[in-house]
């Protein structure tokens, strides 16, 4: 229907024959095992009239709630990033995150969404958005049989779809904040945020959820909730930012050896990790885009990966650094969450544990390697989101199962008899996102640098961004200890 917008091409878990099909889905939680489906079956798509209305209303309310959880992640990011950096920059961090969500919502409305989900709006890129008559008014949800999409789903109403997707855009932007903490000009950060949420992120999203080249490959790209589209985008932008801005003063010795610059509050950082963990139960289950029995499966798989990630990072840090590092364990939990976004609908419980524990190990090793490479990413944003986002895409290529639910038309991963074709697609996705974002964000940060908008002066950096960029310290004189470091 030309007046309706699809909820993108986000792949939902296919519960094609209604409730009964969910039995099949269940087997995704196992290494193997055919579904038992001896119960009475009701077909979601066969509902009509008030029944369909109730179903669709629940879908939309559910996604609204998930979007709220995703917006809550902003508080989590703020706390993680502020906690792992210096007290003298804490207010600046929170201000950046406040602006990420504000800019994110507005830029995504005005420009980004039209690019991300071209749909009927092909040709409108750049002008589509809020001001196009019919843009928001056409969120009517028609519940008649003819309204069903090809895949047997009702689309979400436009406002809820936008609300959910805008929360994702703001999330992608915020990932960078921590990587460039403590030395970036505030005005430069605002400009970065405008471009990321208005252009870079939407373009990447259009490749898959917007129906672009990744989604239309013979063996379709699998990125259920955005290991690649969201996290790699944020993560690689973070990497380019950290490189181009350069390390904080004092982060490396004259001969290039990294020095520790301990964060000012690990307790705040881990509180942020808990909040992100909660938010992720909007991020992943909400990406099903409807309220059905797949939601709890997604939640369990998500929790398994998170738990395995935390334990993997704890173990890895314990082995490599002799003690279990707290902020690394927090990074590990997040790494597990980032990595499982891609395959949460396709991997088994075993696959989730493997995805998570590997992500937890990778993130620790990556943080160490990045630092050894002379790059200053104070919160490990690239390692968590960039590296583990890529790992998540690859993990799906290895570990995706062929369960009844995703059926014959879906490819299993390399380890599940599906051959390399899914893995190849996933690798293409990894390369495409990494390359495009590195170039685009690289150009953006280089441009800002050239314009003198990227980095504060050494005096301002030493004084702290709270005072130099915002006029007053983030902690009052009754809290802040004048540090001798």
């Amino acid at each position, binding site marked *: 229907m030309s007046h309706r917008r699809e909820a993108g091409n986000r792949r939902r878990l296919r519960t094609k024959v209604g409730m009964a099909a969910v039995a099949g889905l269940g087997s995704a939680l196992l290494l193997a095992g055919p579904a038992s489906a001896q119960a009475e079956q009701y077909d979601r798509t066969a509902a009509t009239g008030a029944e369909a209305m109730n179903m669709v209303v629940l879908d939309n309310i559910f996604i609204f709630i998930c979007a709220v959880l995703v917006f809550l992640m902003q508080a989590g990011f703020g706390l993680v990033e502020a906690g792992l950096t210096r007290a003298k920059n804490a207010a600046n961090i929170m201000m950046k995150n406040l602006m990420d969500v504000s800019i994110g919502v507005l830029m995504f409305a005005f420009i980004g969404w039209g690019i991300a989900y071209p749909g009927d709006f092909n040709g409108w890129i750049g002008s589509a958005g809020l001001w196009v008559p019919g843009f928001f008014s056409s969120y009517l949800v028609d519940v008649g049989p003819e309204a069903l999409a090809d895949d047997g789903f009702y689309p979400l109403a436009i406002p809820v779809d936008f609300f959910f997707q805008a929360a994702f855009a703001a999330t992608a932007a915020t990932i960078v904040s921590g990587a460039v903490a403590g030395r970036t000009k505030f005005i430069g950060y605002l400009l970065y945020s405008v471009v990321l949420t208005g252009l870079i992120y939407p373009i990447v999203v259009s490749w898959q959820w917007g129906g672009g080249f990744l989604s239309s490959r013979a063996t379709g790209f699998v990125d259920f909730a955005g290991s690649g589209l969201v996290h790699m985008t944020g993560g690689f932008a973070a990497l380019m930012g950290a490189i181009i801005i350069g390390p904080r003063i004092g982060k490396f010795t004259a001969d290039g050896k990294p020095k520790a610059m301990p964060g000012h509050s690990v307790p705040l950082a881990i509180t942020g990790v808990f909040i992100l963990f909660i938010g992720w139960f909007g991020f992943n289950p909400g990406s099903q885009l409807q309220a059905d029995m797949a939601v709890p499966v997604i939640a369990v798989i998500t929790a398994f990966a998170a738990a395995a990630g935390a334990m993997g990072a704890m173990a890895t*840090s314990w082995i490599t650094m002799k003690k279990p590092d707290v902020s690394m364990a927090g990074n590990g939990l997040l790494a597990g969450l980032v990595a499982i976004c891609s395959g949460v609908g396709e991997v088994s419980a075993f696959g989730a544990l493997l995805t998570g524990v590997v992500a937890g190990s990778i993130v620790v090793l990556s943080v160490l390697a990045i630092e050894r490479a002379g790059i200053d990413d104070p919160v490990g944003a690239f390692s968590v989101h960039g590296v583990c986002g890529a790992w998540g895409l690859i993990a799906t290529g290895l570990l995706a199962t062929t369960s009844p639910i995703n059926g014959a038309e879906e490819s299993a991963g390399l380890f599940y008899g599906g051959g390399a074709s899914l893995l190849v697609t996933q690798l293409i996705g990894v390369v495409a996102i990494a390359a495009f974002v590195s170039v685009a964000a690289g150009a953006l940060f280089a441009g800002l640098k050239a314009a003198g908008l990227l980095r504060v002066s050494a005096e301002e950096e030493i004084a702290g961004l709270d005072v130099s960029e915002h006029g007053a310290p983030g902690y009052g004189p009754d809290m802040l200890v004048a540090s001798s470091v």
Partner: protein
Amino acid sequence: MQLVTAVIKPHMLDEVKEALRGIGIQGMTVTEVKGFGRQGGHTETYRGAEYQVDFVPKTKLEIVVDTPDVSKVADAIASAAQTGKIGDGKLWVTPVDSLVRIRTGEVGADAV
């Protein structure tokens, strides 16, 4: 009049305070400081980067005392603060030319 300055281990403060009270000392000024010494520091590891913490928390006491009492005060502190383990700290005595109690304007030994 002399000024007794002592740098001690923080957790010995209570005992030193009681010892001083025991010999009639009614006033002192305490500062949280960091000490560098033979005790050495320790290594910490934050996100994989090791760093040396050379300074350990110490507590500094400053007490102005009438000259005749100095050795009594110094002994009281030194014995109360002693654990025998490295890092117990130092105590030194410096001359004071004059002393004033701000509230009353009293000077000299009366102001202690």
